[in-house]
């Protein structure tokens, strides 16, 4: 199985490392930043392609790690060429685009695997399985929290351009919309606020979202780009009819550094959680995706999950503008 990776930023680099732990072969990379692509290609003894078009004939799988607004066009191209697709979250920038790529992949008979990596983090996966095993009964109120600092980029910081990334309500908080759906099922209503909507000059951003699930459960999702680098905090609390599950990345960190600093420390461009575990959740994810592609094994994330979380994110953006809740259209009926 030959994989071509599109984009060589933080995610492209991380995926390359994950693929390297599978039997798949990394055929090559394509990216706007050729220098960075050259470095990675050297490391993995792969090629640099000038474009996705140039890469397609050489690969079986296209792994899309480009900025969100480019996903739609790239997925359509890869699907038209009959290639399987792995795509970073969010699946697409709009619900309409997400719907189109899901349909296109379905028609083309290719797999569309959406990298909602939070489902592969051991603490999140363990809580999900505890709930699936009935340990706390029916979930009632979920609180999901993900907080870091504003993503940096040497140039062209697309994360901060809403037309490209969807901003904090889409880019960061979609992780937890997806997790909330995994735990409590489909979402009917979305109510959202965010700091940069009400205070456009704010040097930080922060989003608050309330989801109403069809099951009757409620989810509270908080996303922060307001903390000092290199902070990355995740928390969840899932209260059910028969119990409660709590997690706090700070409280469960097995190592606390109280090391005297000799110089300034550099934070990565994008904050990421890092409790030491034997296998990176990104690698766990790509191994599961490899098994799906090679042997048709089931994965924990379906393409329609990627679509559903984009729909929630888009509703959150709308709600934050209008200060009114948004009722979601059923994706099945649409």
């Amino acid at each position, binding site marked *: 199985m030959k994989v071509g990776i599109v984009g060589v930023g933080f995610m492209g680099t991380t995926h390359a490392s994950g693929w390297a732990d599978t039997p798949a072969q990394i055929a090559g990379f394509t990216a706007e930043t050729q220098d960075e692509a050259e470095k990675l290609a050297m490391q993995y003894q792969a090629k640099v392609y000038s474009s996705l078009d140039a890469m397609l004939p050489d690969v079986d799988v296209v792994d899309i790690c480009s900025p969100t607004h480019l996903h739609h066009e790239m997925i359509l191209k890869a699907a038209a060429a009959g290639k399987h697709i792995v795509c970073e979250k969010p699946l697409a920038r709009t619900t309409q685009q997400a719907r189109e790529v899901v349909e296109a992949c379905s028609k083309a008979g290719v797999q569309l695997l959406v990298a909602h990596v939070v489902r592969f983090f051991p603490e999140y996966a363990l809580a999900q399985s505890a709930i699936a095993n009935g340990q706390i009964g029916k979930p*009632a*109120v979920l*609180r999901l929290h993900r907080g870091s600092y504003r993503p940096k980029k040497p140039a062209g910081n697309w994360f901060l351009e809403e037309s490209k990334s969807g901003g904090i309500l889409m880019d960061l908080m979609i992780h937890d919309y997806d997790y909330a759906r995994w735990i409590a099922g489909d979402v009917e*209503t979305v*109510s959202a606020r965010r700091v940069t909507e009400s205070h456009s000059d704010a040097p930080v951003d922060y989003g608050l979202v309330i989801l109403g699930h069809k099951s009757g459960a409620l989810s509270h999702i*908080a996303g922060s780009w*307001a903390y000092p680098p290199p902070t990355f905090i995740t928390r969840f609390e899932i209260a059910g009819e028969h119990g409660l599950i709590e997690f706090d990345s700070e409280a469960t960190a097995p190592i606390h550094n109280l090391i005297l600093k000799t110089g300034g420390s550099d934070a990565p461009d994008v904050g990421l959680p890092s409790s030491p575990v034997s296998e990176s959740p990104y690698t766990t994810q790509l191994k599961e995706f490899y098994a799906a592609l090679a042997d048709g094994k089931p994965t924990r994330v379906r393409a329609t999950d990627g679509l559903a979380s984009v729909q929630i994110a888009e509703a959150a953006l709308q709600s934050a503008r209008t200060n009114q809740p948004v009722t979601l259209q059923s994706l099945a009926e649409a």
Partner: protein
Amino acid sequence: MKIGILSFAHHHGEAYISNLRRMDNVELLGVADDDTTRGEALAKQHEARYFPSYEALLEAKPDGVIICTENNRHRSLVEMAASCGVHVLCEKPIATTHADAKAIVDVCSQAGIVLMTAFPMRFSVPLLEIKARLDNGDFGNVYCFNATNQGELPTKHRAWFVDPDLAGGGAIMDHTVHLVDIMRWFIGSEVETMYAHSNKIFHADEVQVETGALEMLTFKNNVFATIDASWCRPQYWPTWGGLTFEMVTQRGAVFVDAFRQNINVYSHNAQRANWSYWGSDMNHAMVNEFASAIRENREPKVTGVDGLRAVEATLAAYESTRTGQTVQVQRA
């Protein structure tokens, strides 16, 4: 100064007895309760004088009373105290309807007596520190709050806490007012809009009222917030619940856990973890402020209007759960 306690319907009544007894120049006049059995038993247990009726206690000329009835019965006792010129510290929420809350504020204003709402969080030392840093400009502009006031089902204290009439609702009525009041105090702005969504999954078969609730509110100055008011804590959780918030500001964020000052106790007797609180007693500071306001003939640091505003936001939350929309808070 003599202070009496009217009713033990709210379990805080017992705590106030010990608060009053530890204060200088304040005497616990006694207690009265329309539930004679409960009143007599608790009066005996706490070695307090028992009055056979509220009228009898008021005739003994207290300077002030602390009203600890069920939520919907505050008004009649406030009116009785006001007619005797007796100052009032009233349990929260101050009332369950807008009309009652307004009437309570008006009757005390007309009588020229002190009316204080029992919002103990105003006297929490960690919260006072945040307030001082806010006033000092340490945080710059405030943008939003992500707040929780969660608890266990309160029926282990009193059954009426889940009675739709006596309590005026469930988790929303019980928990919204504290955080609304804290935020109003911190940022000096009124709640403009409210969105709320509730459910009844915890204790579904035991109660009629909502047990889970999330709220989203916006203040006049554009600060917004969420409040989790849920009764989501299992009865075997290490403590009763808590109150937390993250405040997001121009200079970053600050997490506050108002009841975090605990020791963890593991006892063979309890067979579970227990968080034992060693932080300062905010109830004591609150009751002390009531006595000081009476003594100094001044407005207390927490007024009846503060209680009224918190009730208005809470009622808007209930309206939102009915309409499914973000609603305007109606202010008197």
